[in-house]
């Protein structure tokens, strides 16, 4: 499951999508909207993305992860549009035969997504001020 969607993420469906009797370890990561960052309050986040390229990049990230680790199944879902406090903006799920690979692969996928997926977020503050979060230049 590779998705870039305006709908709330169904974490149960993401987890179910990687379930298999071949795996002993399943890791689900959810990135959620945090209320405070260095004392600055966030009311909501708004995500924008280059949709067709996001889907290509997420597939490339998944394929690369599946070459590096013995992954049975892997799903990556990212939202766009408005994401409320405590809601998930991103979900990554992997299943592997053994535990250590599931943690390492999920963490690498998240890290790589944050470095390469053409997605941008803007945070809305309580005073109505909004700005693009300073991101990572893609190299």
């Amino acid at each position, binding site marked *: 499951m590779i998705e870039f969607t305006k709908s709330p993420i169904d974490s149960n469906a993401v987890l179910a999508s990687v379930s298999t009797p071949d795996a002993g370890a399943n890791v689900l990561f959810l990135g959620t909207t945090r209320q405070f960052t260095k004392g600055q309050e966030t009311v909501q986040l708004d995500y924008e993305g280059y949709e067709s390229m996001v889907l290509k990049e997420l597939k490339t990230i998944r394929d690369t992860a599946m070459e590096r680790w013995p992954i049975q199944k892997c799903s990556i879902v990212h939202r766009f549009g408005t994401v409320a406090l405590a809601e998930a903006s991103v979900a990554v799920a992997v299943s592997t035969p053994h535990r250590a690979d599931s943690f390492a692969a999920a963490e690498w996928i998240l890290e790589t*997504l944050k470095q390469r997926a053409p*997605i941008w977020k803007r945070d809305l503050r309580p005073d109505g001020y909004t700005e*693009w979060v300073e991101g990572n230049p893609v190299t």
Partner: protein
Amino acid sequence: MNIELLLFASAKDLFGESQIPLKLPTGATIADLKSALIKRQPEAASLIGRCAFSVDQQYATDDMELNPNHEIAMIPPVSGG
């Protein structure tokens, strides 16, 4: 040749459009595209320096030659996740 450059997020805000037309010489590269952009909008030079560019939804290097059928986009520093 005429190309259309797709813009997102802070780049879209800076240029005021989600897509801008650019006239480039045949055989122009991403590096030439950047120069043309900076000439058109000098205050964008700093942002352009921090941006990546994509061709047909894949990251492209500065020496990549462009053609009019390519889908070309300017990718500001990303902040997904």
